[in-house]
């Protein structure tokens, strides 16, 4: 019979991985709605590069963080300031562009 700590470890890992797998499968089979993910919500609803860069920055930061945790799983790793700046900058760009497009479409309407 497995040790209870080992059992909890397997149980937790299995739950998180299966949940992650189910969400990824639903994303790939479009059961989770992805329509307009890279589209401007305001104005002409065209392709939006700032959304793509935000997603790329998110994926890069997430994969970098997970790789650091896997390297040394005894403590949550520190996030370097350069990564914080990069990630924050990406968000500022996305939000700034959204705000600008939103304001200019308001001015066009009025």
């Amino acid at each position, binding site marked *: 019979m497995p040790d*209870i*700590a080992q*059992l*909890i*470890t397997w*149980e*937790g*890992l299995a*739950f*998180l991985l*299966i*949940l*992650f797998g*189910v*969400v990824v499968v*639903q994303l790939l089979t479009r*059961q*989770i*709605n*992805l*329509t*307009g*993910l*890279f*589209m401007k*919500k*305001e104005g002409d609803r065209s392709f939006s590069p700032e959304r793509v860069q*935000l*997603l790329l920055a*998110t*994926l890069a*930061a*997430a994969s970098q*963080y*997970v790789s650091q*945790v*896997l390297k040394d*799983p*005894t*403590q*949550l*790793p*520190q*996030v*370097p*300031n350069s*990564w*914080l700046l990069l*990630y*924050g900058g990406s*968000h500022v760009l*996305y*939000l700034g562009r*959204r*705000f600008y497009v*939103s304001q200019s*479409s*308001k001015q066009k*309407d*009025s």
Partner: protein
Amino acid sequence: MLALQYLEVLVGYVVCGIVALFGLLLIWKIATNQIDLTHLLSDDDGLASTSRFQLVIFTFVVALSFFLVVVSNVKVRQYENKAESVPGFPDVPGGVLALLGISASSYLVSRGISASQNGDSTTTKTPTPPPAGTPPAGTKV
């Protein structure tokens, strides 16, 4: 004393089993669409939102990392034969809090922009009231 220890282990296994059953039930319901995740990433307008997507990704990443660190600390304690001392939760560094803060506040600001946009569009769509003295529609003059 021995009986109490057996009882402790037994209760531990039973609780573990119950939590596993809840987890399986949850995953089964999600997989069979009884828990509908279609609009997990959708905004009020029905279109997928990038800010929601990045928040979901970061929530998964931090949850998985936290779990891995807790499990790893338990293993280290067992290896060092310090099983009787219970390890606390790991410290969350400021950088991780900043990452989560950026992610969540970006989502909130994005929602604010969408809400102001929707509010303005409903305001512009509201019909203007007729000028004073105009008879109501359908009234014979």
